[in-house]
C-alpha cells in the first residue's frame, strides 16, 4: 500500500488563545505548537501499522512554512518514510486541499489519511475536498480500518452509533479516536528521521475565497451560582424560569 498522511501543525491543546492586530491574527507568543492529535495519534499510526503488516510506504505531507519542519520531523521519527512540505501559509481549507490533491494526483496513493478535524479550525473539510479533487470515495470519522487486498472494512462514527462499510482502494479517510494508539518516537526513530527525505515543493497558484477575517473570545460566564444540595427545588426553578432550559 502506498499511503499519504496529511498532517497539520496546531497550537497545543492547553495553549492560551489570544489575538493581535485588532483581533485579526492569532497571537503565537508563548504558544507551543504540536502535530494535530488526530493526524498523529490515529491517522499516522494506523498508516504505519498497515505498512508494517502489508508492506508499502508512508509519506507525510504538510502545507505550511519552514517552521513546521519540527513537527514534520516528528512524524518521520514516529516512522513515516519520507515527507513533503508545500511551502505556503494559508488558513483556507480549499487552498490546502488543492495543494495536497496536486501532489496526490501525481503520486497515485492507495489511501490518503487525514485527521477527523484540526483542533484549531475544527472544520473537518480538507479530507472531503481532497477526495473530490481526486474523484475518490471519502470515509469520515473512521474508528476502525482493516484491509484485505484492495478491500477495506471501515467502521465510522455516525450520530448515536456506528456504520460498518466496505470500500476498495483508492480512497480518502479521516481518522477518529479508536483507529490506533498513540506512539512515542524512540531515540532510533529520532536519529533516522534526520536522514529521511523532506522534499519542499512550491504551491500552485490558487485564490483564497473563504478565510477568517477576525476573531473574538467567547463572552465570559457571569460566574457560577452555587446552590445548596438540600435545595434542588430552587435549582429546578432557576433552570425553568431564569435559564429557560427546561
Amino acid at each position: 500500500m502506498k499511503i499519504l498522511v496529511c498532517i497539520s501543525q496546531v497550537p497545543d491543546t492547553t495553549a492560551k488563545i489570544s489575538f493581535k492586530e485588532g483581533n485579526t491574527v492569532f497571537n503565537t507568543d508563548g504558544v507551543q505548537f504540536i502535530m494535530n492529535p488526530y493526524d498523529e495519534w490515529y491517522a499516522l499510526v494506523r498508516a504505519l501499522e498497515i505498512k508494517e503488516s502489508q508492506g508499502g510506504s508512508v509519506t507525510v505531507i504538510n502545507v505550511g512554512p519552514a517552521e513546521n519542519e519540527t513537527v514534520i520531523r516528528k512524524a518521520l521519527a514516529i516512522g513515516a518514510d519520507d515527507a513533503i512540505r508545500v511551502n505556503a501559509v494559508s488558513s483556507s481549507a480549499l487552498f490546502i486541499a488543492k495543494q495536497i490533491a496536486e501532489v496526490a494526483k501525481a503520486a497515485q496513493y492507495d489511501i490518503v489519511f487525514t485527521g477527523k478535524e484540526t483542533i484549531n479550525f475544527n472544520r473537518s473539510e480538507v479530507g472531503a475536498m481532497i477526495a473530490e479533487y481526486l474523484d475518490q470515495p471519502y470515509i469520515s470519522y473512521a474508528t476502525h480500518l482493516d484491509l484485505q487486498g484492495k478491500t477495506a472494512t471501515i467502521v465510522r462514527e455516525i450520530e448515536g452509533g456506528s456504520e460498518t462499510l466496505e470500500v476498495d482502494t483508492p480512497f480518502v479517510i479521516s481518522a477518529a479516536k479508536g483507529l490506533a494508539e498513540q506512539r512515542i518516537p524512540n531515540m532510533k526513530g529520532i536519529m533516522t528521521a534526520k536522514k529521511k527525505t523532506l522534499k519542499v515543493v512550491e504551491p500552485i497558484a490558487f485564490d483564497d475565497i473563504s478565510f477568517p477575517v477576525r476573531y473574538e473570545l467567547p463572552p465570559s460566564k457571569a460566574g457560577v451560582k452555587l446552590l445548596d444540595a438540600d435545595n434542588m427545588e430552587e435549582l429546578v426553578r432557576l433552570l425553568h424560569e431564569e435559564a429557560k432550559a427546561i
Partner: protein
Amino acid sequence: MILIFAEVQNKTFKKQTLELVTYGSKVAKMLNTSCVVLVLGEAENAGQLGKYGANKVYQVVNDHLNTFDSQVYTQVIAKTAEQIDASVIVLAHSSTGKSILGRLAARFNAGSVAAVNTLPSIDGNSFEVQKTVFSSKAIATYSIKSEKKILSLSGNSIAPEILGNEVEVELLSIDVPAPKVRVKEVKKVAGIVPLPEAELVVSAGRGLKGPENWGIIEELAKELGATTACSRPVADTGWRPHHEHVGQTGVAIRPNLYIAVGISGAIQHLAGVNNSKTIVVINKDPEAPFFKAADYGVVGDLFDVVPKLTQAVKDFKSK
C-alpha cells in the same frame, strides 16, 4: 436561490433538518430570493418542510441513495444546485453533511465554512458568518468571496419556526450513479436522541466510581427527557460506550442544558461542551475547574445530590 439539503432518517426528518430549513428561509429573505429544499431518498410527508420555510421541495428517489456514499450524494446535490442556480447551499454539520460540504466546495470552487452557528451578515458583496474555533475557545468571523457559498450549520444554532404552509413536492429525475461504498451494518441506539442533536444532556465522569452506579444518571436523564453522555476516562475504561464520550476527542455538543456530574472539567472536556447554553456542575470538590465554566453549581456528594435533583424534577413536572 438557497438550496437546503434535508437529511432523511428512517423516512422522517430530524429536528436538525427543520432548523436547517428555517435557517435557509431566513437567508433567502436576506438575499431576496427563495428557499429550495432537496430531499434524497424516500420520506414521509416531505411537503411539511414548507411549514418551516421551504418555498419549494424537490425529491429524488432512487435505490442508489439508500446507501450513503458522499460521492453519489454530492453529485445529485450539485446537479440540483446547477439546475436552480443556487447561490448558497446549506447542509447540516452532521456525519453526512461533513462528508459532503468539502466535496461541494471543491467541485464548485466555492468558499465554504463548516459548523456555522449564526445567520450570515450580508452587506452588498460582503458575506460573513461565524463559527467557533480553537475547540470553542474563540469565535471566528469568516468572509466568503466566491459567488457560490457552501455552509454547514451546527445543531441547536437556531430554533425551527413555523413560517409557512405545506408545499407540493416535485420529484426530480436525476441520474444517480451506483455507490462505491457498501454499507454492511448500522448500529444505533434506538429511541434516544443522538448527542449532537440533544437539547438536554446529563453527563457523568469518574466521580461515579463505577458502571454499577450509572442508574442514578439514567434516572435523572429519563426524568428530564435528556440524553446521557460521559467523560473520556469513563468511555476509555469501558463503563459506557464510546459514542457517549463528549469532549475534544469525542463528540462536540451544544445543548440547551448540560448537567455534569462528578466531572472535574479538564480543558479537553470543556472543549467539547462549553457551547452548551446552560451548564450545571455537581461535584464534591469546590476547587473543580468545571465550576468556573458553569452557570449553576452544587458542591456536594453526587450520590446524595443527584437523586434529590431527580426528585425535584419529578415534583416540578407533576405540578
